């Protein structure tokens, strides 16, 4: 296995329910993602793109197949091992932001650092600098309710990158935002990919947003239909 291969999925399937009502959301996914990639995953609803994303993010487990992350077999890991993998290597951005309500921006960003056991001073300093990187230096004491959608997503990005993750997983990060704000968010994500070498996996159904990615994977009916580098003919 080459050093470049960060993530390797082989024969991943996912079935919901059982018996007659069983629904196969993923019908065998094979995928390799190199370190430093910016990958957009596209497809209609029900195509399996979100399910794949959740499996990649160790938030959900595949029914069968193998998932290797930096060579480690994720499908064999316990819940706690997967939690530690998320804690130490992954960062998440969601469509619905998923910030803790009634909790200041700073405290939200600090949260992953608390679980990492960083000392208070380090935690504050890292969280402040992450907020500064997303342009929210003066908003650290505001709660999500006092922030606009774009600002909330920036806080979420700050929370995702504050631990300097290897992979940033973004599930429709611009789904709830207007076009201009969406662009700003995409620029921000691109910056972290370019300047900090964070691998980005992003689910989206908007071609405009997918255009920021270096690689676009298209899902149809639980299979990969198309996998292309941007600029190549699809």
């Amino acid at each position, binding site marked *: 296995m080459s050093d470049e291969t960060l993530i390797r999925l082989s024969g991943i399937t996912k079935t919901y329910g059982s018996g007659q009502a069983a629904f196969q959301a993923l019908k065998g996914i094979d995928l390799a993602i190199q370190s430093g990639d910016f990958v957009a995953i596209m497809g209609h609803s029900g195509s399996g793109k979100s399910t794949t994303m959740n499996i990649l993010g160790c938030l959900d487990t595949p029914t069968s197949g193998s998932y290797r992350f930096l060579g480690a077999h994720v499908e064999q890991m316990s819940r*706690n091992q997967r*939690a530690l993998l*998320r*804690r130490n290597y992954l960062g998440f951005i969601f469509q619905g932001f*998923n910030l803790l309500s*009634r909790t200041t921006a700073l405290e939200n960003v600090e949260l992953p650092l*608390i679980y990492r056991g960083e000392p208070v001073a380090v935690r504050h300093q890292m969280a402040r600098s992450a907020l500064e990187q997303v342009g929210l230096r003066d908003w650290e004491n505001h709660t999500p309710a006092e922030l606009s959608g774009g600002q909330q997503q920036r806080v979420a990005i700050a*929370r995702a990158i504050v631990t300097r993750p290897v992979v940033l997983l973004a599930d429709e990060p611009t789904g709830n935002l207007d076009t201009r704000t969406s662009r700003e968010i995409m620029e921000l994500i691109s910056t972290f990919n370019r300047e900090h070498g964070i691998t980005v996996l992003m689910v989206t159904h908007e071609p405009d947003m997918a255009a920021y990615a270096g690689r676009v994977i298209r899902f149809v009916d639980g299979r990969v239909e198309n996998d292309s580098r941007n600029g190549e003919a699809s």
Partner: protein
Amino acid sequence: MLWNTLLLALRAIRRNLMRSFLTVLGIVIGVAAVITMVTLGNGATKSVSDQISSMGSNMLIVIPGQRFGPGSEGAPSFKSADVDAVRNQITAVERVAPMVNKTVTAVYQAKNWSTVVYGTSNDYFQAGNWKLAGGRTFNETEERAGKAVCVIGETVRNKLFGRQNPVGSEIRIKQFACEVVGLLKSKGQSAMGQDQDDIVVMPLRTVQRRLTGSQDINRLTVSVKNSSSIDAAKKQLTLLMRERRKISDNEEDDFRVMDTRQIAETLTSTTKILTALLGAVAAVSLLVGGIGIMNIMLVSVTERTREIGIRLAIGALEREVLLQFLIEAVVLSSLGGMVGIALATGASIILARLMNIPYLFDLGINLLSFLFSAAIGVIFGFFPARRAAGLNPIDALRHE
């Protein structure tokens, strides 16, 4: 990890002040109600038994009873000879005080007061556990001659003399004047709620001659030398009275012998029932408080499930999340419990003073209600969280 988790729990409590407050409130009210009720009930029981012992322990009271149902002729009263017979023939007896009583109006200058005159002997003061606040008891001449002298209770002093010293003054009862020779120390209310200090005591003969006009005696107050011989004394007394009153073997007693211990038991068992009843009512409020906590916890489960999803997604271990929720629940519940205990203690002390009963700290009920409410808080704060933390993070995040 523990320190971090504690920090997370405290943050969660602080940022959900309203929810935290409501949870705590449910526990506070429940705990406070139960503890206050039971504490006051215990105080009332204690006060009753105190008052009974103030009546004098080791004491038997003999009264004529009715042999047949209501409406029939009352049983005959006792005579002076009965008093002597009891005094001389029963060895366990220490003192025997005869007694007749009559409701009269006592007058001093422009004031008058309706009270009860007890005609008895000096033995009554000893047997009834009375102490003097001033003056003296009767002397032998006064008793034998039936002189118009009296010893009055605190209430009578208060109504007729105010703060003034009554000893040496004369009060008028019916048509005769009576010199006050002594003042009794206050005993307060009796267990039956009577004012024991509303009393004028005179020599037996004075009352018989001037007020009742008969040789009858309504009651014998008998004190026994020591409490172990009280049952034996009671038996002997019953036999003696049956003999003197010529009751044949197949007839029932036409008098009753009561001992103060028995009265005490009856009355304290009554207040104990009341305490249990009040405690039960308060337990309902603890239960209602518990249901309140349940509601708040269950209503917030949706929000908290998402929160748990977020925490799991960013890398919290299941046990870290659970520990946080457990600490949260324990902190809130014990806070509520402690505030409840403090509130109950304050309320009990104040109410006990207002109700004129002693305040007794009951460790058992404090612990019990504290643990019960804490258990409710922990169970309903923790178990929904445990369910949520067992979900796949993505399912917890999507929870509606």
